[in-house]
């Protein structure tokens, strides 16, 4: 009922914004549990569920689109899709090019993994290109080894190309849980300002609509439930 009310409020507020129009949601599709392609070949994951729910509450028709991580911002700016929901942390550098809604995932820990608990985290460290983790390694003084997708990182670690891998904790957690040879190294490092929906700077109305829907989900606790479902009971919530 509440979502119905808010939906109609949003409708009334943004009379000029053509709500009947489809909003295209861009994602990477290679980043479980945030977003990935499931066995049936469809976009799935936390962001799929959240995005669909946000669209329902804001009464938008939404369509999912996958795009390479490398060119995910240029294609948003160029108008190929209207939002980015791809586990993208809010940072000042990105904020200069695009806008973010409020965070829908609180700031979370990035972590090192290696083949042993005393693996070298100051030597060659692998991370994904254009991520906050890659930025952190580049400034930490270690040698950064960049890969285009996250799942290449573990291969690089096993083949000995990298001494350790530094990446978002939630992505690594499943891998550590299921592979005996991969273990946590060192302490978690808090990075970034949380994950938000990326929108074009000129798309103020869409941003407001999404912000309203996220606020509503934060208030009624449904966002926290969703976070726990996908990231485990111990994950940070709002």
């Amino acid at each position, binding site marked *: 009922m509440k979502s119905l009310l808010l939906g109609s409020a949003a409708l009334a507020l943004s009379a000029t914004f053509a709500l*009947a129009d489809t909003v295209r949601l861009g994602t990477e599709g290679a980043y479980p549990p945030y977003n990935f392609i499931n066995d*049936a070949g469809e976009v799935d994951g936390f962001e799929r569920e959240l995005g669909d729910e946000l669209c329902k509450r804001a009464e938008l028709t939404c369509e999912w689109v*996958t795009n390479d991580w490398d060119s995910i911002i240029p294609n948003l700016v160029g*108008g190929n899709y209207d939002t980015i929901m791809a586990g993208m942390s809010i940072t000042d550098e990105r904020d200069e090019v695009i806008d973010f809604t409020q965070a829908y995932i609180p700031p979370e820990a990035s972590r090192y993994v290696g083949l042993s608990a005393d693996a070298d985290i100051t030597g060659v460290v692998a991370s994904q290109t254009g991520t906050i983790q890659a930025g952190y390694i580049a400034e930490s003084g270690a040698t950064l080894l960049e890969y285009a*997708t996250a799942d290449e990182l573990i291969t690089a670690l096993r083949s000995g190309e990298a001494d350790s891998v530094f990446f978002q904790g939630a992505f690594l957690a499943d891998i550590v849980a299921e592979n005996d040879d991969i273990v946590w190294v060192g302490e978690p490092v808090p990075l970034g300002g949380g994950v938000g929906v990326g929108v074009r700077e000129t798309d103020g109305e869409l941003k407001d609509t999404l912000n309203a829907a996220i606020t509503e989900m934060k208030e009624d606790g449904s966002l926290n439930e969703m976070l726990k479902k996908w990231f485990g009971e111990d994950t940070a919530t709002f």
Partner: protein
Amino acid sequence: MRPAIFSSCTDPANLDMLPWLSCYLTTGKHLAFYASFGTVLLLLAVTAPLALLFGFAGASVARSRITPLAWLGKGYIAIVRGVPDIAFFLFFVIALDQAVEWLRHKVKCPDWDQPIRQGNDFVVCQIAKMPLNSAPQWVHEVYGFSLAMVTFAIVFGAFAANVLYGAMQAVPRAQIETAEAYGMSRSQSFWRIVVPQMWLYALPGLSNLWMVLIKATPLLFLLGVEDIVYWARELGGAKTTRFTEYPHDDWRMWYFLGLLLFYLAFTKLSEIVLTRITRRLSHGQATLGGEALRKDAQGGATA
């Protein structure tokens, strides 16, 4: 979730190797992978004739006696051949897409008062979007595919133009002189003498281009089309048990091995077909190949 093709696939964790594999290889994701082979073949089937057309036009224009036209043809060949493919693909497709939207914007939304370029953003009115935001996903995919096709045709057309230009020049001068002696006009001798004979000279260059084109198809993913290399990478990546019924380690090697075989088989097939075409075109030509064929035929007749 879509029902699996085989009813036994509902609980793959309990299956043996072979049934497991048959289930694994028929997931929706794999079907999309197989379909992408069709995408690549379709691209080749459409792009090759289109590029040849661009090439033929480019070469004919470059040979023109009207100087500005000749400059146009030579400029096209020189510029497109000189720019790295990847830069061309990244720049040209975006420019083409934005040019289309800009034109539609000018026509459909004359009252629009905001600038189209706002900082980094390219903003046109909703009804000028190409394709429309509300269009189903397949329309977007077809549009993306068409952009890819045109881009491939332009790039490979420039190389083909250079090959055909050379081939046209290689047709023996004596042939054209004979045509002139018979009173043919320039365009008559072009269509009746030069064009039919130039293919033999063009074929080695064109077959090279065809091979390169086959191998260039992975550039499709740069244009947002999900091609076989994208799917091989996606399917081959290591999967944990949490989000798939079919967890596995890093299997990219096997998928890429499959792609290797596909490309090898396809280029081998192309070679066979091209050899046949060369043989056919050599008939009656005053070339080494043509002479050999003539002797063969004579030998066969006398024996």
